[in-house]
């Protein structure tokens, strides 16, 4: 554009061809277009009445402002559908001022969903199931079960239970989980029909157990993982969350076959862990062509494209984490795969990365010794060895001079930490500890080669056997009273959960044969938790205090006990899993035996259980895994798994759009103290959800409501280590550091390894600069303030 010509151009613009899809129109009086196409004037009173009905029992909600704001955003001729949607979003937007508006938004949305279902002439759960079966969505097993028990199931549907939803949870269900008609795209189920579908699919064909499971789900006390929620009862019942694929063998056929495996598993909503440790390194000779290999990066680039192409039926994107052992000579290229500079041909933004680290490497780092990098072609046995066997083989290879390069172990450790800090990726997972504590790895030859996409699953596998796990999580917030955890209720939920998870193994559709084979032998499941932080809020326990540590450990012990107990009872009934004789449990060894500091709460009870397990075996080789619960915690309206809260006030971004989430526990406390005022809200917003600088709030409360950025990360590791004694798989343990620096990072991961953690997950950090806050009066322009207590974190002084 010529600078000088602009005004002349603007003057002649009117005559130019229009770059326009819709002609501007003149707004007149506001009317809405009804479903039948007729128009009527917008009636404020009608909207107020509708909001008032939905707000029953919500005392802080004022219907009139919601109605007025809704109309303010309307345009002439908008549809009633748009009007409904706008009123929901208007209410939701007020959540940060008063959390009850979130409940109001959820109820308005529930009405819209109910209308959508009823509008297709579906008046009951059994009718909706029959329609779903006709449309080719519901499988014959569930169709017939529902037809046989129609009256009981229809009577059990509890529409009032939908009032438990927070807006965000219900929105997520509506946008992505409820079954939709393949042509009309209208939802065929209400949230309660949805829960009943899961219950009917996983209730074992038994009406009593089905109804019990429905009630637990409807209470939001327990939720299976997303693939189970998506697919249970459907014609493609792929309900497992995790697949662990061992490294393809070092051949073109094997590499391409693995792409196919990954695609098939992604298609049906499985998350994938994939080792690449067996693939030869850059510069290695290719005998068939007498050329030199380009190493793992080009193969991973192809995998990256493949993962992006398969998007899980539009429900969520495919996701894959690649594991590499740090002795692989391509490790440095591997660590750069997600850098945001450099050659795009060597970057893979759709892949997650993890390091599968032997203890020997960590010891060499500690000793400041050298580390040798190998071409896997020269040391083909290494991926299948761990512990002393690995160390002997590794050192022998070093002595033979087979290594390609020697570098200081600390130089590589530094690069690994930098990758973590700069990309959040390149997770630290520990090969030896994972194998030494794995129930399945008792016999040599049964080796854990990697963890999964979220680093909570540890199962043995091989080139022909792909480990699988189906997951579920208990909402601890639903198992707490003012007195503490209700352990009887927790035990009952665990028993119900293990029976349900065990059924999934038999019902599950396995997209690849290697996975079916493995699951038939090992029958592992992964029961986890969510809402631990909600429990601490409710009981006013600081996250890093001794009471929190004791309670969280006790919860883990109770869950492991009742899970084993139930699995043993199932073995008594149906027989132990086929590979039971190959497990450590068969030798009487349980998870906490690998953790010297663990003290069973009631040793006698454990000895009795040990004896029963020896006699009857276990139905499942593995039982407990703490998954991240990102989406199901939203549905249940609780904090994620075992994590501290990120902020007292934050924005949540998902496929359904962005939502403001406010810590309702804090709001309740502040209301009790008469402190929930506009000024205080603004202060929290200015501080990006922190309340530490707000003197008006009593100090003990401030300690309870610290954000994860304000907690010592050592506490997270200590809690994880104490809990680890009762977790036979692992935990998705995120660590957080607002401004990462190498000193703190290297200390932190060394500590995590020494405490015996098997795996860690993302390192979360915060951006160095910020978006200007547009809606806070007097927002500070500069973010960093100098703090003498915290010089390492202070940007201003460096």
């Amino acid at each position: 554009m010529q600078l000088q010509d602009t005004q002349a151009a603007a003057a002649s613009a009117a005559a130019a061809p229009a770059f326009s899809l819709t002609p501007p129109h003149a707004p007149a009086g506001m009317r809405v277009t009804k479903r039948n196409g007729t128009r009527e004037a917008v009636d404020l009173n009608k909207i107020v009445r509708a909001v008032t009905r939905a707000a029953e029992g919500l005392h802080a909600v004022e219907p009139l402002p919601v109605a007025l704001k809704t109309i303010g955003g309307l345009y002439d001729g908008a549809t009633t559908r748009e009007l409904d949607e706008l009123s929901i979003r208007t209410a939701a937007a007020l959540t940060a001022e008063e959390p009850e508006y979130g409940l109001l938004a959820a109820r308005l949305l529930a009405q819209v969903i109910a209308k959508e279902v009823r509008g297709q002439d579906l008046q009951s759960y059994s009718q909706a199931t029959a329609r779903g079966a006709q449309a080719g969505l519901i499988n014959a097993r569930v169709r017939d079960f529902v037809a046989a028990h129609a009256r009981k199931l229809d009577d059990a549907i509890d529409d009032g239970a939908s009032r438990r939803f927070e807006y965000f949870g219900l929105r997520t269900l509506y946008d992505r989980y409820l079954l939709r008609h393949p042509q009309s795209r209208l939802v065929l189920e209400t949230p309660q029909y949805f829960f009943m579908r899961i219950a009917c699919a996983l209730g074992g064909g038994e009406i009593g157990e089905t109804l019990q499971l429905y009630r637990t789900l409807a209470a939001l006390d327990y939720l299976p993982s997303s693939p189970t929620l998506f697919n249970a009862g459907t014609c493609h019942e792929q309900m497992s969350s995790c697949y662990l694929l061992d490294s393809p063998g070092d051949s073109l056929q094997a590499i391409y076959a693995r792409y196919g495996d990954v695609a098939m598993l992604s298609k049906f909503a499985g998350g994938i862990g994939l080792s690449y440790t067996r693939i030869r390194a850059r510069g290695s000779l290719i005998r068939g062509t007498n050329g030199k290999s380009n190493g793992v990066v080009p193969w991973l680039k192809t995998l990256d494209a493949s993962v992006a192409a398969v998007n899980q039926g539009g429900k969520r994107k495919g996701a894959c984490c690649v594991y590499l052992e740090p002795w692989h000579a391509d490790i440095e290229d591997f660590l750069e795969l997600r850098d945001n500079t450099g050659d795009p041909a060597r970057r893979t933004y759709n892949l997650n990365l993890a390091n599968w680290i032997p203890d020997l490497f960590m010891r060499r780092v500690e000793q400041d010794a050298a580390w040798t990098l190998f071409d896997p072609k020269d040391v083909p046995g290494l991926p299948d060895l761990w512990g002393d066997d690995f160390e002997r083989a590794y050192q022998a290879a070093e002595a033979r001079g087979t290594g390609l390069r020697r570098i200081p172990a600390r130089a590589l450790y530094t690069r690994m930490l930098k990758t973590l800090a700069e990309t959040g990726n390149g997770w630290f997972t520990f090969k030896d500890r994972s194998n030494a504590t794995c129930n399945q790895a008792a016999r040599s030859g049964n080796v854990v080669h990697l963890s999964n996409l979220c680093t909570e699953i540890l199962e043995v596998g091989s080139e022909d056997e792909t480990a699988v796990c189906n997951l579920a999580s208990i909402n601890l917030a639903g198992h707490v009273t003012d007195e503490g955890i209700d352990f009887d209720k927790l035990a009952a939920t665990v028993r119900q959960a293990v029976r349900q998870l065990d059924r999934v193994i038999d019902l599950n559709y396995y997209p690849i044969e290697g996975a079916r084979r493995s699951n038939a032998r090992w029958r592992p499941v992964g029961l986890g938790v969510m809402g631990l932080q909600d429990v601490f809020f409710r009981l006013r326990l600081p996250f890093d205090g001794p009471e929190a540590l004791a309670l969280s450990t006790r919860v883990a012990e109770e869950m492991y006990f009742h899970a084993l107990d139930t699995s043993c009872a199932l073995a008594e009934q149906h027989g132990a899993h086929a590979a039971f004789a190959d497990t450590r449990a068969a030798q009487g060894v349980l998870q906490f035996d690998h953790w010297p500091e663990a003290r069973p709460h009631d040793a006698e009870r454990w000895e009795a259980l040990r004896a029963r397990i020896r006699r009857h075996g276990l139905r499942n080789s593995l039982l407990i895994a703490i998954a991240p619960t990102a989406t199901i915690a939203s549905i249940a309206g609780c904090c994620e798994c075992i994590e501290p809260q990120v902020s007292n006030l934050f924005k949540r971004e998902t496929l359904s759009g962005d939502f403001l989430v406010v810590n309702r526990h804090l709001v309740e406390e502040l209301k009790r103290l008469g402190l929930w005022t506009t000024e205080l809200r603004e202060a929290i917003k200015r501080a990006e959800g922190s309340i530490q600088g707000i003197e008006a709030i009593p100090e003990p409360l401030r300690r309870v409501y610290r954000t994860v950025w304000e907690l010592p990360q050592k506490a997270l590791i200590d809690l994880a280590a104490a809990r680890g004694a009762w977790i036979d798989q692992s935990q998705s343990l995120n660590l957080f550091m607002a401004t990462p620096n190498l000193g703190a990072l290297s200390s932190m991961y060394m500590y995590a390894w020494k405490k015996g953690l098997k795996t860690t997950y993302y390192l979360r950090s915060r951006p160095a600069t910020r978006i200007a806050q547009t809606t806070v009066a007097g927002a500070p322009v500069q973010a960093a303030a100098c703090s003498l207590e915290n010089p390492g974190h202070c940007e201003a002084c460096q």
Partner: protein
Amino acid sequence: MNTPIAPASAPPPCLLDPGYALTLRPMRYPQFYDMYRAAIRNTWTVEEVDFSGDVNDLRQKMSPAERHLIERLVAFFATGDSIVSNNLVLNLYRHLNAPEARMYLSRQLYEEALHVQFYLTLLDTYLPDPAARQAAFAAVDNIPSIAHKAAFCCKWIDSVRQLDALDTPQKRRRFLLNQIGFAACIEGLFFFAAFAYVYFLRARGLLHGLAAGTNWVFRDESCHMAFAFAAIEVVRAEQPELFDAGLEAQVRAMLAEAIDCEAEFARDVLAGGIAGLSPAQMRQYLEYVADQRLRQLGYAPQYGAGNPFPFMELQDMQELANFFERRVSAYQVGVSGELRFDSSF
């Protein structure tokens, strides 16, 4: 701290003094250098933005009125950042006479180019037809509501282009008006309004690629604005006499004109009717933002408008992306320190 040592007789040097200063030690304005370093830590690339869902959204999920909104917006973005770059090179870099300030501006120039690349990629992705692409760039000449905004920008660029040296208070005021125009009206108002449309759509779960990139662009633009206001603050501290009543009146008039320009654009963008976003609300939002700009400049607010857009509150909040669904945009580039095993964490 880093106060320059000058002979008692000579007046202390000022940021707007003519010349091309080279001395970085002692550093006169360390805050500019810090801003430069902070900007580098937030490097991002267009390749990181995933547009894969956007085309589907445009084709399948969006109404004609919403597609019209997007086409107008893309047409504005196509040229907006290039105009800002031009002013940076032609005026700001020339007259802000401190090497650390010019370091920041160099970085800003790179970021503007990155934004141009981002919006070009966006346009190529959204508009498969080459004629439509050409039309988008021609919008700056052909579409009145966009041409008026461009004319506003170019008027202020041209207002100081002929100035070789800011050697009188009048010239310095003319320059200040240019800088305030770009910070408060163009980056701080036109762009903020454009971001509001994007955030409105994002709050409804639409166009994640556009939203992700915009998030990063917004973060950059926030820093550009913060730098400009910091520079203006420096000038005010050095030469308070420049900030007279005449300057204030001109700033207020300029903001009023910018609001009118942008409100005209809003009427065009929203012509098809968008539930939840009316031209009247957009005007109120512009007035609300303009009041904030006035406050940042140390002037009393003029309009007394409240924020009508709850979805803009969303963007003030810490993001917690569900990693299955979005790439987290919060990571830093560059980590410092030494390997240790006894640090607290």
